[in-house]
Protein backbone atom coordinates (compact mmCIF):
# COMPACT_ATOMS: atom_id res chain seq x y z
CA UNK A 1 0.00 0.00 0.00
CA UNK A 2 1.24 3.42 -0.88
CA UNK A 3 -0.79 6.53 -0.13
CA UNK A 4 0.42 9.91 -1.24
CA UNK A 5 -0.89 13.38 -1.73
CA UNK A 6 0.56 15.45 -4.55
CA UNK A 7 0.57 19.24 -4.32
CA UNK A 8 -2.83 19.37 -2.64
CA UNK A 9 -4.44 22.80 -2.61
CA UNK A 10 -7.79 23.69 -1.16
CA UNK A 11 -9.55 27.04 -1.34
CA UNK A 12 -12.80 27.88 0.38
CA UNK A 13 -14.92 30.76 -0.84
CA UNK A 14 -15.77 33.11 2.05
CA UNK A 15 -17.47 36.45 2.28
CA UNK A 16 -14.10 38.18 2.41
CA UNK A 17 -12.79 36.39 -0.65
CA UNK A 18 -11.09 33.06 -1.01
CA UNK A 19 -9.49 31.37 1.93
CA UNK A 20 -6.50 29.19 1.12
CA UNK A 21 -6.71 26.29 3.59
CA UNK A 22 -4.09 23.99 2.09
CA UNK A 23 -1.27 25.05 -0.19
CA UNK A 24 0.77 22.36 -1.83
CA UNK A 25 0.67 19.51 0.69
CA UNK A 26 2.85 16.52 -0.17
CA UNK A 27 2.95 13.51 2.07
CA UNK A 28 3.19 9.75 1.78
CA UNK A 29 2.38 6.74 3.93
CA UNK A 30 3.66 3.23 3.34
CA UNK A 31 2.14 -0.13 4.25
CA UNK A 32 1.96 -0.80 7.96
CA UNK A 33 3.08 2.67 9.03
CA UNK A 34 1.42 4.71 11.74
CA UNK A 35 1.81 8.35 10.78
CA UNK A 36 0.46 11.43 12.54
CA UNK A 37 -0.29 14.89 11.30
CA UNK A 38 -0.07 17.60 13.94
CA UNK A 39 -0.79 21.26 13.62
CA UNK A 40 -2.45 24.12 15.41
CA UNK A 41 -6.13 24.72 14.86
CA UNK A 42 -6.57 26.38 11.50
CA UNK A 43 -3.73 24.46 9.92
CA UNK A 44 -6.25 22.65 7.73
CA UNK A 45 -5.46 19.21 9.10
CA UNK A 46 -9.07 18.10 9.22
CA UNK A 47 -9.60 19.39 5.67
CA UNK A 48 -6.56 17.40 4.62
CA UNK A 49 -7.94 14.21 6.13
CA UNK A 50 -11.37 14.79 4.58
CA UNK A 51 -9.78 15.18 1.16
CA UNK A 52 -7.83 11.94 1.64
CA UNK A 53 -11.07 10.24 2.73
CA UNK A 54 -12.69 11.54 -0.46
CA UNK A 55 -15.36 13.52 1.40
CA UNK A 56 -14.07 16.74 -0.12
CA UNK A 57 -12.42 17.43 -3.44
CA UNK A 58 -9.12 19.32 -3.60
CA UNK A 59 -9.02 22.56 -5.58
CA UNK A 60 -5.95 21.16 -7.29
CA UNK A 61 -3.52 18.32 -6.77
CA UNK A 62 -4.50 14.75 -6.06
CA UNK A 63 -4.59 11.87 -3.61
CA UNK A 64 -3.21 8.57 -4.90
CA UNK A 65 -3.65 5.11 -3.42
CA UNK A 66 -1.57 2.39 -5.01
CA UNK A 67 -1.20 4.55 -8.10
CA UNK A 68 -4.92 5.32 -8.49
CA UNK A 69 -6.44 8.74 -7.96
CA UNK A 70 -9.02 9.06 -5.19
CA UNK A 71 -12.31 10.35 -6.57
CA UNK A 72 -14.65 9.87 -3.64
CA UNK A 73 -15.11 8.06 -0.35
CA UNK A 74 -14.71 4.30 -0.33
CA UNK A 75 -14.18 1.34 1.95
CA UNK A 76 -10.44 1.21 1.16
CA UNK A 77 -10.07 4.22 3.51
CA UNK A 78 -11.75 3.65 6.86
CA UNK A 79 -12.60 6.73 8.88
CA UNK A 80 -12.94 7.34 12.61
CA UNK A 81 -14.25 10.71 13.77
CA UNK A 82 -13.80 12.39 17.13
CA UNK A 83 -17.53 12.16 17.75
CA UNK A 84 -18.43 8.51 17.93
CA UNK A 85 -20.75 8.39 14.89
CA UNK A 86 -22.27 5.03 15.77
CA UNK A 87 -25.71 3.95 14.54
CA UNK A 88 -27.70 4.35 17.76
CA UNK A 89 -30.57 2.04 16.71
CA UNK A 90 -28.25 -0.90 16.03
CA UNK A 91 -26.62 -3.26 18.51
CA UNK A 92 -22.85 -3.33 18.90
CA UNK A 93 -22.55 -6.36 16.64
CA UNK A 94 -24.80 -4.82 13.97
CA UNK A 95 -22.72 -1.64 14.09
CA UNK A 96 -19.57 -3.67 13.54
CA UNK A 97 -21.22 -5.51 10.63
CA UNK A 98 -22.64 -2.40 9.00
CA UNK A 99 -19.93 -1.79 6.40
CA UNK A 100 -19.92 -5.48 5.47
CA UNK A 101 -23.70 -5.49 5.12
CA UNK A 102 -23.54 -2.44 2.84
CA UNK A 103 -21.16 -4.34 0.62
CA UNK A 104 -23.50 -7.32 0.46
CA UNK A 105 -21.35 -9.83 2.31
CA UNK A 106 -23.22 -13.03 3.29
CA UNK A 107 -24.70 -12.80 6.78
CA UNK A 108 -22.64 -15.58 8.31
CA UNK A 109 -19.40 -14.22 6.95
CA UNK A 110 -20.34 -10.77 8.32
CA UNK A 111 -20.90 -12.16 11.78
CA UNK A 112 -17.66 -14.08 11.75
CA UNK A 113 -15.65 -11.05 10.64
CA UNK A 114 -17.37 -8.69 13.08
CA UNK A 115 -16.79 -11.12 15.94
CA UNK A 116 -13.09 -11.26 15.10
CA UNK A 117 -12.72 -7.46 15.19
CA UNK A 118 -14.90 -7.06 18.25
CA UNK A 119 -12.49 -9.52 19.86
CA UNK A 120 -9.55 -7.34 18.79
CA UNK A 121 -11.06 -4.25 20.41
CA UNK A 122 -12.25 -6.19 23.47
CA UNK A 123 -15.98 -5.70 22.93
CA UNK A 124 -17.05 -9.22 22.07
CA UNK A 125 -18.89 -9.61 25.36
CA UNK A 126 -20.87 -6.43 24.54
CA UNK A 127 -22.10 -7.58 21.13
CA UNK A 128 -25.77 -7.46 22.14
CA UNK A 129 -25.68 -4.00 23.78
CA UNK A 130 -26.71 -0.71 22.21
CA UNK A 131 -24.24 2.18 21.73
CA UNK A 132 -25.86 4.28 24.46
CA UNK A 133 -25.00 1.56 26.94
CA UNK A 134 -21.26 1.92 26.24
CA UNK A 135 -18.73 4.31 27.78
CA UNK A 136 -16.92 6.88 25.63
CA UNK A 137 -13.81 4.72 25.26
CA UNK A 138 -15.89 1.67 24.35
CA UNK A 139 -17.81 3.67 21.74
CA UNK A 140 -14.59 4.76 20.11
CA UNK A 141 -13.29 1.18 20.18
CA UNK A 142 -16.48 0.09 18.44
CA UNK A 143 -16.05 2.80 15.80
CA UNK A 144 -12.51 1.49 15.22
CA UNK A 145 -13.73 -2.11 14.99
CA UNK A 146 -16.42 -1.10 12.51
CA UNK A 147 -13.85 0.68 10.32
CA UNK A 148 -11.38 -2.21 10.57
CA UNK A 149 -14.00 -4.85 9.74
CA UNK A 150 -14.11 -3.74 6.10
CA UNK A 151 -10.33 -4.27 6.10
CA UNK A 152 -9.38 -0.91 4.63
CA UNK A 153 -5.96 -0.23 3.16
CA UNK A 154 -5.57 2.67 5.54
CA UNK A 155 -7.41 3.77 8.66
CA UNK A 156 -7.91 7.54 8.85
CA UNK A 157 -8.49 8.97 12.32
CA UNK A 158 -9.53 12.57 12.98
CA UNK A 159 -8.62 13.41 16.59
CA UNK A 160 -10.16 10.13 17.67
CA UNK A 161 -9.35 10.49 21.36
CA UNK A 162 -10.06 14.21 21.68
CA UNK A 163 -13.36 13.72 23.49
CA UNK A 164 -12.03 11.26 26.07
CA UNK A 165 -10.79 11.99 29.59
CA UNK A 166 -7.06 11.76 30.29
CA UNK A 167 -7.09 8.25 31.80
CA UNK A 168 -9.25 6.75 29.07
CA UNK A 169 -7.10 8.49 26.49
CA UNK A 170 -3.95 6.85 27.82
CA UNK A 171 -5.60 3.43 27.78
CA UNK A 172 -6.77 4.05 24.22
CA UNK A 173 -3.25 4.97 23.11
CA UNK A 174 -1.95 1.64 24.35
CA UNK A 175 -4.99 -0.05 22.80
CA UNK A 176 -4.43 1.53 19.40
CA UNK A 177 -0.81 0.41 19.37
CA UNK A 178 -1.94 -3.13 20.20
CA UNK A 179 -4.52 -3.11 17.41
CA UNK A 180 -1.93 -1.74 15.04
CA UNK A 181 0.55 -4.48 15.96
CA UNK A 182 -2.05 -7.25 15.78
CA UNK A 183 -3.66 -6.25 12.50
CA UNK A 184 -0.78 -4.56 10.70
CA UNK A 185 -3.22 -1.87 9.52
CA UNK A 186 -1.78 1.32 8.08
CA UNK A 187 -2.96 4.28 10.16
CA UNK A 188 -3.02 8.01 9.47
CA UNK A 189 -3.89 9.96 12.58
CA UNK A 190 -4.69 13.63 13.02
CA UNK A 191 -4.13 15.22 16.38
CA UNK A 192 -3.18 18.41 18.14
CA UNK A 193 -1.80 16.42 21.08
CA UNK A 194 1.98 16.31 20.68
CA UNK A 195 2.51 13.61 23.29
CA UNK A 196 -0.06 11.42 21.54
CA UNK A 197 1.70 11.94 18.22
CA UNK A 198 5.13 11.01 19.61
CA UNK A 199 3.89 8.01 21.57
CA UNK A 200 1.89 6.50 18.71
CA UNK A 201 3.65 7.34 15.48
CA UNK A 202 6.69 6.34 13.56
CA UNK A 203 6.62 9.55 11.59
CA UNK A 204 4.99 12.90 12.23
CA UNK A 205 4.10 15.61 9.76
CA UNK A 206 4.03 19.07 11.34
CA UNK A 207 1.69 21.41 9.47
CA UNK A 208 2.10 25.16 9.42
CA UNK A 209 -0.99 27.35 9.50
CA UNK A 210 -2.76 29.66 7.14
CA UNK A 211 -2.23 28.35 4.56
CA UNK A 212 -1.63 24.79 5.68
CA UNK A 213 1.45 23.12 4.29
CA UNK A 214 3.98 20.64 5.58
CA UNK A 215 6.48 22.49 7.75
CA UNK A 216 8.55 19.48 8.65
CA UNK A 217 8.54 15.71 8.55
CA UNK A 218 9.91 14.16 11.74
CA UNK A 219 10.94 10.53 12.22
CA UNK A 220 10.14 9.33 15.72
CA UNK A 221 13.08 7.43 17.10
CA UNK A 222 11.46 5.02 19.55
CA UNK A 223 11.30 1.22 19.58
CA UNK A 224 8.46 -0.21 17.50
CA UNK A 225 6.91 -1.87 20.53
CA UNK A 226 6.11 0.82 23.10
CA UNK A 227 4.39 1.09 26.44
CA UNK A 228 3.73 3.80 29.04
CA UNK A 229 7.21 3.56 30.53
CA UNK A 230 8.79 5.02 27.42
CA UNK A 231 6.95 8.29 28.05
CA UNK A 232 9.36 8.97 30.92
CA UNK A 233 12.51 8.32 28.89
CA UNK A 234 14.73 11.28 28.11
CA UNK A 235 14.59 10.32 24.45
CA UNK A 236 10.76 10.60 24.44
CA UNK A 237 10.79 13.93 26.24
CA UNK A 238 13.35 15.37 23.87
CA UNK A 239 11.37 14.39 20.80
CA UNK A 240 8.21 15.80 22.33
CA UNK A 241 10.02 19.04 23.14
CA UNK A 242 11.36 19.18 19.61
CA UNK A 243 7.84 18.99 18.15
CA UNK A 244 6.45 21.47 20.67
CA UNK A 245 9.19 23.89 19.68
CA UNK A 246 8.19 23.60 16.03
CA UNK A 247 4.57 24.36 16.90
CA UNK A 248 5.62 27.23 19.17
CA UNK A 249 7.59 28.83 16.38
CA UNK A 250 4.49 28.42 14.24
CA UNK A 251 2.30 30.16 16.78
CA UNK A 252 4.78 32.99 17.09
CA UNK A 253 4.67 33.43 13.32
CA UNK A 254 0.89 33.59 13.28
CA UNK A 255 0.79 36.04 16.19
CA UNK A 256 3.40 38.32 14.63
Amino acid sequence: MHLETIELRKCFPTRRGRLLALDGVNLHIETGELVSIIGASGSGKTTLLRIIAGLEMPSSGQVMIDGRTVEGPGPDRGLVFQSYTLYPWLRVEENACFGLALQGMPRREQKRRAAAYLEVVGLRHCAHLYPHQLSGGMKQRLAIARALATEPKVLLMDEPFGALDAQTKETMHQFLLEVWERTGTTILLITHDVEEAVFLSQRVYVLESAPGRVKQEVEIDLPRHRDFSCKRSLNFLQQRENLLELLRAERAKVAA
Partner: protein
Amino acid sequence: MALSNSSLQAMQTGQKPTTTDLQPTVFWRLAERIPGALHWRLTVVSILAPLLVWWGVTQTPWVDPRFLPSPMQVLQAMGRLWQEGFLLRDTLASGFRVVAGFFLAGVVATPIGIGMGAFASIRTLLEPLIGLLRYMPAAAFIPLLIIYFGLDEAPKIILIFLGTVFFNVLMIMDAVKFVPKELIEVTYTLGGNRWQVLLKVITPYIVPSILDTLRVNIATSWNLVVIAELIAANEGLGKRIQLAQRFFRTDEIFACLLILGLIGVVIDVGMRYFTRFTCRWAFSKSGG
Protein backbone atom coordinates in the same frame (compact mmCIF):
# COMPACT_ATOMS: atom_id res chain seq x y z
CA MET B 1 -18.61 30.97 58.10
CA ALA B 2 -21.60 32.93 57.02
CA LEU B 3 -24.91 32.25 58.67
CA SER B 4 -28.13 33.27 57.11
CA ASN B 5 -30.57 35.51 58.94
CA SER B 6 -33.09 32.85 59.66
CA SER B 7 -30.60 30.46 61.24
CA LEU B 8 -29.19 33.32 63.34
CA GLN B 9 -32.69 34.18 64.52
CA ALA B 10 -33.34 30.56 65.24
CA MET B 11 -30.23 30.36 67.41
CA GLN B 12 -31.08 33.56 69.23
CA THR B 13 -34.56 32.41 70.01
CA GLY B 14 -33.20 29.07 71.15
CA GLN B 15 -34.96 27.07 68.46
CA LYS B 16 -33.27 24.48 66.37
CA PRO B 17 -31.94 26.01 63.13
CA THR B 18 -34.37 25.20 60.38
CA THR B 19 -33.18 23.95 57.06
CA THR B 20 -35.68 25.87 54.97
CA ASP B 21 -32.99 28.18 53.65
CA LEU B 22 -30.82 25.27 52.60
CA GLN B 23 -33.64 23.32 51.00
CA PRO B 24 -35.33 25.80 48.76
CA THR B 25 -38.73 25.42 47.20
CA VAL B 26 -39.93 22.17 45.71
CA PHE B 27 -42.93 23.54 43.85
CA TRP B 28 -41.04 26.31 42.05
CA ARG B 29 -37.92 24.38 41.12
CA LEU B 30 -36.68 25.50 37.75
CA ALA B 31 -36.14 22.87 35.07
CA GLU B 32 -36.07 20.02 37.56
CA ARG B 33 -38.22 17.04 38.34
CA ILE B 34 -40.67 17.12 41.24
CA PRO B 35 -41.04 14.24 43.70
CA GLY B 36 -43.36 11.43 42.61
CA ALA B 37 -45.88 12.02 45.40
CA LEU B 38 -46.24 15.68 44.50
CA HIS B 39 -46.56 14.74 40.84
CA TRP B 40 -49.52 12.47 41.51
CA ARG B 41 -51.21 14.89 43.86
CA LEU B 42 -50.96 17.70 41.31
CA THR B 43 -52.29 15.41 38.59
CA VAL B 44 -55.33 14.52 40.67
CA VAL B 45 -55.93 18.19 41.49
CA SER B 46 -55.70 19.14 37.82
CA ILE B 47 -58.56 16.76 37.04
CA LEU B 48 -60.68 17.16 40.16
CA ALA B 49 -60.55 20.96 40.49
CA PRO B 50 -62.26 21.80 37.17
CA LEU B 51 -64.77 19.01 37.78
CA LEU B 52 -65.59 20.48 41.19
CA VAL B 53 -65.96 23.98 39.77
CA TRP B 54 -68.24 22.63 37.06
CA TRP B 55 -70.32 20.76 39.59
CA GLY B 56 -70.42 23.76 41.94
CA VAL B 57 -71.62 26.13 39.24
CA THR B 58 -74.43 23.79 38.20
CA GLN B 59 -75.61 23.60 41.83
CA THR B 60 -76.27 27.34 41.97
CA PRO B 61 -79.79 28.54 41.16
CA TRP B 62 -78.58 30.98 38.50
CA VAL B 63 -77.55 28.37 36.00
CA ASP B 64 -80.20 26.76 33.84
CA PRO B 65 -79.34 23.05 33.52
CA ARG B 66 -80.64 23.14 29.98
CA PHE B 67 -77.64 25.32 29.11
CA LEU B 68 -75.05 23.83 31.44
CA PRO B 69 -75.88 20.30 32.59
CA SER B 70 -74.19 18.93 35.69
CA PRO B 71 -71.45 16.28 35.47
CA MET B 72 -73.97 13.66 36.57
CA GLN B 73 -76.42 14.59 33.81
CA VAL B 74 -73.65 14.38 31.23
CA LEU B 75 -72.68 10.97 32.53
CA GLN B 76 -76.32 9.85 32.27
CA ALA B 77 -76.51 11.19 28.71
CA MET B 78 -73.41 9.20 27.90
CA GLY B 79 -74.97 6.04 29.31
CA ARG B 80 -78.13 6.67 27.34
CA LEU B 81 -76.25 7.17 24.10
CA TRP B 82 -74.36 3.97 24.79
CA GLN B 83 -77.53 1.96 25.46
CA GLU B 84 -79.19 3.26 22.33
CA GLY B 85 -76.12 2.13 20.40
CA PHE B 86 -75.33 5.58 19.01
CA LEU B 87 -72.15 6.09 21.00
CA LEU B 88 -70.38 3.02 19.61
CA ARG B 89 -71.65 3.55 16.08
CA ASP B 90 -70.69 7.22 15.96
CA THR B 91 -67.29 6.69 17.56
CA LEU B 92 -66.47 3.91 15.12
CA ALA B 93 -67.59 6.02 12.16
CA SER B 94 -65.48 9.01 13.21
CA GLY B 95 -62.58 6.78 14.15
CA PHE B 96 -62.59 5.06 10.77
CA ARG B 97 -62.45 8.39 8.92
CA VAL B 98 -59.61 9.65 11.07
CA VAL B 99 -57.60 6.46 10.70
CA ALA B 100 -58.15 6.26 6.93
CA GLY B 101 -57.35 9.92 6.22
CA PHE B 102 -54.45 10.05 8.56
CA PHE B 103 -52.96 6.77 7.38
CA LEU B 104 -53.04 8.07 3.80
CA ALA B 105 -51.43 11.33 4.90
CA GLY B 106 -48.68 9.47 6.75
CA VAL B 107 -47.94 7.11 3.87
CA VAL B 108 -47.75 9.97 1.38
CA ALA B 109 -45.92 12.44 3.62
CA THR B 110 -43.13 10.18 4.83
CA PRO B 111 -41.30 9.61 1.54
CA ILE B 112 -41.89 13.20 0.40
CA GLY B 113 -40.65 14.59 3.72
CA ILE B 114 -37.55 12.40 3.68
CA GLY B 115 -36.90 13.31 0.06
CA MET B 116 -37.23 17.03 0.80
CA GLY B 117 -35.02 16.78 3.84
CA ALA B 118 -32.32 14.79 2.10
CA PHE B 119 -32.20 16.50 -1.29
CA ALA B 120 -31.96 20.28 -1.53
CA SER B 121 -33.22 19.99 -5.11
CA ILE B 122 -36.50 18.33 -4.13
CA ARG B 123 -36.85 20.76 -1.23
CA THR B 124 -36.45 23.75 -3.56
CA LEU B 125 -38.92 22.22 -5.96
CA LEU B 126 -41.70 21.52 -3.43
CA GLU B 127 -41.25 23.93 -0.54
CA PRO B 128 -42.94 27.01 -2.08
CA LEU B 129 -46.00 24.97 -3.09
CA ILE B 130 -46.33 23.17 0.22
CA GLY B 131 -45.64 26.36 2.15
CA LEU B 132 -48.62 27.94 0.39
CA LEU B 133 -50.97 24.95 0.61
CA ARG B 134 -50.25 24.61 4.31
CA TYR B 135 -51.72 28.04 4.98
CA MET B 136 -54.97 27.31 3.16
CA PRO B 137 -57.30 26.21 5.95
CA ALA B 138 -58.37 22.66 5.22
CA ALA B 139 -61.98 23.46 6.13
CA ALA B 140 -62.08 25.95 3.25
CA PHE B 141 -61.77 23.01 0.88
CA ILE B 142 -65.04 21.44 2.07
CA PRO B 143 -67.35 23.01 -0.53
CA LEU B 144 -64.97 22.02 -3.29
CA LEU B 145 -64.69 18.50 -1.93
CA ILE B 146 -68.46 18.17 -1.82
CA ILE B 147 -68.71 19.33 -5.42
CA TYR B 148 -66.03 16.88 -6.51
CA PHE B 149 -66.76 13.85 -4.33
CA GLY B 150 -70.32 14.21 -3.09
CA LEU B 151 -71.36 13.53 0.51
CA ASP B 152 -69.93 10.06 1.09
CA GLU B 153 -66.88 8.98 2.99
CA ALA B 154 -64.45 10.13 0.31
CA PRO B 155 -64.65 13.92 0.88
CA LYS B 156 -64.26 13.47 4.65
CA ILE B 157 -61.21 11.27 4.31
CA ILE B 158 -59.69 13.60 1.74
CA LEU B 159 -60.34 16.57 4.01
CA ILE B 160 -58.41 14.90 6.82
CA PHE B 161 -55.68 13.99 4.36
CA LEU B 162 -55.36 17.57 3.10
CA GLY B 163 -55.43 19.01 6.58
CA THR B 164 -52.52 16.93 7.85
CA VAL B 165 -50.35 15.86 4.93
CA PHE B 166 -48.50 19.17 4.49
CA PHE B 167 -47.69 19.51 8.17
CA ASN B 168 -46.43 15.94 8.20
CA VAL B 169 -44.21 16.62 5.21
CA LEU B 170 -42.64 19.76 6.67
CA MET B 171 -42.05 18.26 10.11
CA ILE B 172 -40.49 15.09 8.68
CA MET B 173 -38.34 17.24 6.41
CA ASP B 174 -37.08 19.14 9.44
CA ALA B 175 -36.27 15.91 11.26
CA VAL B 176 -33.89 14.90 8.47
CA LYS B 177 -31.84 18.02 9.20
CA PHE B 178 -30.93 16.57 12.58
CA VAL B 179 -29.26 13.49 11.16
CA PRO B 180 -25.57 14.10 11.99
CA LYS B 181 -23.58 14.82 8.83
CA GLU B 182 -20.72 12.70 10.13
CA LEU B 183 -22.99 9.67 10.42
CA ILE B 184 -23.75 10.00 6.72
CA GLU B 185 -20.10 10.54 5.84
CA VAL B 186 -18.91 7.58 7.85
CA THR B 187 -21.43 5.45 5.96
CA TYR B 188 -19.85 6.49 2.66
CA THR B 189 -16.42 5.49 3.97
CA LEU B 190 -17.86 2.10 4.92
CA GLY B 191 -18.77 1.58 1.29
CA GLY B 192 -22.38 2.77 1.33
CA ASN B 193 -23.96 4.43 -1.68
CA ARG B 194 -26.49 7.26 -1.61
CA TRP B 195 -29.47 4.94 -1.79
CA GLN B 196 -28.18 2.97 1.20
CA VAL B 197 -27.53 6.15 3.17
CA LEU B 198 -31.12 7.22 2.52
CA LEU B 199 -32.74 3.91 3.43
CA LYS B 200 -30.39 2.47 6.04
CA VAL B 201 -29.14 5.56 7.86
CA ILE B 202 -31.39 8.60 7.41
CA THR B 203 -34.70 6.74 7.53
CA PRO B 204 -34.08 4.63 10.64
CA TYR B 205 -32.53 7.66 12.37
CA ILE B 206 -35.72 9.71 12.01
CA VAL B 207 -38.29 6.98 12.77
CA PRO B 208 -38.84 8.36 16.30
CA SER B 209 -39.34 11.86 14.85
CA ILE B 210 -41.81 10.52 12.29
CA LEU B 211 -43.85 8.81 14.99
CA ASP B 212 -43.77 11.98 17.06
CA THR B 213 -44.89 14.05 14.07
CA LEU B 214 -47.81 11.70 13.48
CA ARG B 215 -48.77 11.89 17.14
CA VAL B 216 -48.86 15.69 17.11
CA ASN B 217 -50.75 15.93 13.83
CA ILE B 218 -53.39 13.31 14.51
CA ALA B 219 -54.98 15.93 16.78
CA THR B 220 -55.69 18.00 13.67
CA SER B 221 -57.41 15.11 11.93
CA TRP B 222 -59.58 14.58 14.99
CA ASN B 223 -60.53 18.22 14.64
CA LEU B 224 -61.34 17.99 10.97
CA VAL B 225 -63.49 14.89 11.19
CA VAL B 226 -65.90 16.73 13.46
CA ILE B 227 -66.04 19.70 11.11
CA ALA B 228 -66.76 17.41 8.18
CA GLU B 229 -69.50 15.60 10.10
CA LEU B 230 -71.13 18.83 11.26
CA ILE B 231 -71.62 19.74 7.62
CA ALA B 232 -72.80 16.49 6.11
CA ALA B 233 -72.89 12.99 7.58
CA ASN B 234 -75.23 10.20 8.54
CA GLU B 235 -73.32 9.22 11.63
CA GLY B 236 -70.26 10.21 13.61
CA LEU B 237 -69.61 12.14 16.78
CA GLY B 238 -69.82 15.44 14.93
CA LYS B 239 -73.18 14.45 13.51
CA ARG B 240 -74.39 13.47 16.99
CA ILE B 241 -73.42 16.91 18.31
CA GLN B 242 -75.29 18.57 15.50
CA LEU B 243 -78.43 16.49 16.14
CA ALA B 244 -78.17 17.22 19.85
CA GLN B 245 -78.10 20.94 19.10
CA ARG B 246 -81.27 20.62 17.04
CA PHE B 247 -83.08 18.98 19.98
CA PHE B 248 -81.44 21.26 22.56
CA ARG B 249 -79.73 18.33 24.28
CA THR B 250 -76.72 20.10 25.75
CA ASP B 251 -76.06 17.07 27.95
CA GLU B 252 -75.45 14.99 24.84
CA ILE B 253 -73.22 17.68 23.36
CA PHE B 254 -71.13 17.66 26.49
CA ALA B 255 -71.05 13.87 26.47
CA CYS B 256 -69.71 13.83 22.91
CA LEU B 257 -67.14 16.52 23.69
CA LEU B 258 -65.93 14.45 26.60
CA ILE B 259 -65.68 11.33 24.45
CA LEU B 260 -63.76 13.24 21.78
CA GLY B 261 -61.29 14.49 24.36
CA LEU B 262 -60.85 11.10 25.98
CA ILE B 263 -60.22 9.32 22.69
CA GLY B 264 -57.68 11.99 21.79
CA VAL B 265 -55.83 11.47 25.05
CA VAL B 266 -55.86 7.69 24.59
CA ILE B 267 -54.41 8.04 21.08
CA ASP B 268 -51.74 10.44 22.30
CA VAL B 269 -50.64 8.32 25.23
CA GLY B 270 -50.81 5.17 23.13
CA MET B 271 -48.58 6.66 20.43
CA ARG B 272 -46.14 7.88 23.07
CA TYR B 273 -45.81 4.41 24.54
CA PHE B 274 -45.56 2.85 21.10
CA THR B 275 -42.68 5.21 20.19
CA ARG B 276 -40.93 4.57 23.47
CA PHE B 277 -41.34 0.84 23.05
CA THR B 278 -40.22 0.58 19.42
CA CYS B 279 -37.45 3.21 19.55
CA ARG B 280 -35.97 2.65 22.96
CA TRP B 281 -32.57 3.79 21.73
CA ALA B 282 -33.88 7.31 21.13
CA PHE B 283 -34.81 7.83 24.76
CA SER B 284 -31.47 7.14 26.40
CA LYS B 285 -29.46 10.03 27.79
CA SER B 286 -26.45 9.73 25.52
CA GLY B 287 -26.86 8.95 21.86
CA GLY B 288 -24.50 7.06 19.60
